[in-house]
């Protein structure tokens, strides 16, 4: 009740500010916007982590969405964030590597974007090099193999556009655009990208029924003597389906990409990459940080028979000498069926998330 009253006060302030256009900007308050947190998330996990320096607002999210889909941020106006983070792919890229405006490809698979507000440690990218979504959003614009722009040019283009100064005025109370405000808006939009309505979510809520194969697959997932996936990839009690922590999952004996180790400089972090969420796997192929696996079958085979030993392989990778956990063909099929039940079709088709 207290929160509702607070929101009402803010709305009243917003109304006043419209009547006083041209007055001191510090009286302007955009409209607060609560995140639409799924019921299972409310029940099971901590609330979203939203920086107090960048509260969610209606105007900020709308601006962030426009920016996310606008090619104006790239040097030649050909690429937007969505070029490599498409809604149909759960805001990932169907290609193994994404090409930038100059046709140069990166060396990592585009990470899907959803439930970022629940990444409590705030480390983003496969190697965790950015702290906070705002910091993360600063990078692609200036990355020479992505948008290959400068922030100075991007801000100049936005400032001279017909729409953006007014939109920034509405979102942040100032028409003077800065890169900091640009990434704040994008981060606000990204925090609204919440996926929590898969078949398995509905099953937990008692509104859907799993097939026997999907249930068997869930048991493989949760069984420490079989899949033992739950230690890193969440569970029915952690609906993020990731621990958002960095692990070496036995992909390589020798590392072409040091991952977290490149960021920390600590050799014991070499070959470690962030555990991706297992939500929305139906839309996010190819898999792993370098997109080496085209199918879920390949992923499951990796953990069952394909593990490569190395000094930093995670202790949770079992039976490494045998190549992995050695689950049966039937168990693999069951596990795959369960994993696909974590895909959220309403999320990728949500009109609020489309261009």
């Amino acid at each position: 009740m207290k929160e509702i009253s607070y929101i009402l006060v803010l709305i009243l302030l917003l109304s006043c500010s419209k009547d006083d256009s041209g007055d001191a900007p510090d009286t302007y308050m955009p409209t607060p916007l609560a995140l639409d947190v799924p019921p299972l998330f409310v029940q099971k996990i901590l609330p979203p982590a939203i920086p107090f320096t960048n509260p969610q607002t209606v105007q900020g999210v709308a601006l962030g969405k426009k920016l996310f889909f606008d090619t104006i941020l790239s040097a030649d106006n050909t690429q937007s964030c969505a070029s490599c983070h498409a809604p149909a792919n759960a805001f990932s890229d169907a290609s193994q590597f994404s090409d930038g405006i100059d046709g140069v490809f990166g060396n990592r698979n585009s990470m899907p974007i959803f439930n970022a507000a629940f990444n409590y440690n705030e480390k983003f990218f496969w190697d965790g090099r950015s702290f906070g979504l705002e910091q993360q959003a600063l990078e692609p614009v200036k990355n020479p193999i992505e948008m290959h722009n400068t922030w100075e040019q991007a801000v100049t283009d936005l400032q001279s556009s017909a729409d953006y100064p007014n939109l920034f005025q509405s979102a942040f109370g100032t028409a003077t655009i800065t890169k900091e405000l640009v990434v704040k808006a994008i981060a606000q939009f990204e925090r609204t990208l919440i996926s929590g309505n898969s078949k398995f979510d509905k099953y937990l809520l008692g509104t859907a029924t799993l097939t026997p194969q999907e249930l068997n697959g869930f048991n493989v997932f949760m069984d420490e003597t079989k899949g033992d996936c739950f230690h890193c990839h969440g569970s029915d009690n952690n609906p993020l389906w990731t621990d958002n922590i960095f692990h070496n999952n036995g992909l390589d004996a020798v590392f072409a990409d040091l991952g977290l180790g490149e960021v920390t400089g600590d050799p014991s972090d070499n070959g470690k990459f962030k555990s991706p969420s297992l939500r929305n796997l139906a839309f996010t192929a190819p898999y792993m940080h370098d997109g080496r696996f085209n199918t879920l079958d390949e992923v499951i085979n990796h953990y069952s028979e394909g593990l490569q030993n190395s000094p930093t392989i995670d202790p949770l990778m079992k039976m490494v000498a045998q190549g992995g956990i050695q689950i049966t063909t039937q168990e693999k099929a069951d596990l795959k069926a369960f994993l696909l039940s974590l895909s959220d079709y309403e999320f990728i088709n949500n009109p609020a998330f489309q261009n």
Partner: protein
Amino acid sequence: MLSIVLFSSCVEDEVPGLQNTNVSLNFKHNWDGTAVTNTDFNTIQYFTAEGDELSIEKLRYLISNVTFHKSNGETIVIEGYNLVDVTNNENVSYITPVQIPVGTYTNVSFTFGFDNTDNVDAVYTDLNSASWNVPMMLGGGYHFMQLEGKFIDNTATETGYQYHAIKAVDNTDPMNLVFQDTFFTVNLGEVIVHNNSSVDVNMNIAEWFKTPHQWDLNALHSMLMPNFSAQVQMHENGQNVFALGTVN
């Protein structure tokens, strides 16, 4: 973040006029007397009683219900829990969320893990967020400890171990799980509490592998959660793990 007071604390028999204070429990770790912090992780350098050489890559454990015992038999129970995360050096100090009277306590104790009243599946959102759960096929609830690393096995190969402590469960018949309690009370002994007292609690990690069961990592290194006898042995070895350190 993972230090939570769940219920109102039961502070009994406070004497008016006595000074009250918070107490800080500082969890410190050693290997048979050699200090261990997360900066010592990831290097194979410790020898178990069995002679296995190992590293530590992850160590976190749960303590709950810190209790201050008075000489007259009364107790002050600080109901709540703390997930000590040595890997990330988080929550290694636990400041009692309520104040207690200064004075002499004949014993300070806490529960290693959760007792059966508190070990309720899914109810702690911070522990769920930390992926601290135990699968329902093993009875649900929460881990008590996750100690992981590598050891040199009997083929001279670096092999992962996962020394995960939970409530012991025999799942031979999945429809009829049989449990045995493995939480235990750690008694630190007499503590004189001053204003803003600081109490060191020392964990000798080597003891998890030593007494009374000399642990053979070659036999017991993986898939220990559903291993009933391994869980019971962890419980028994845990009795000698903690000791009172410096009190200021």
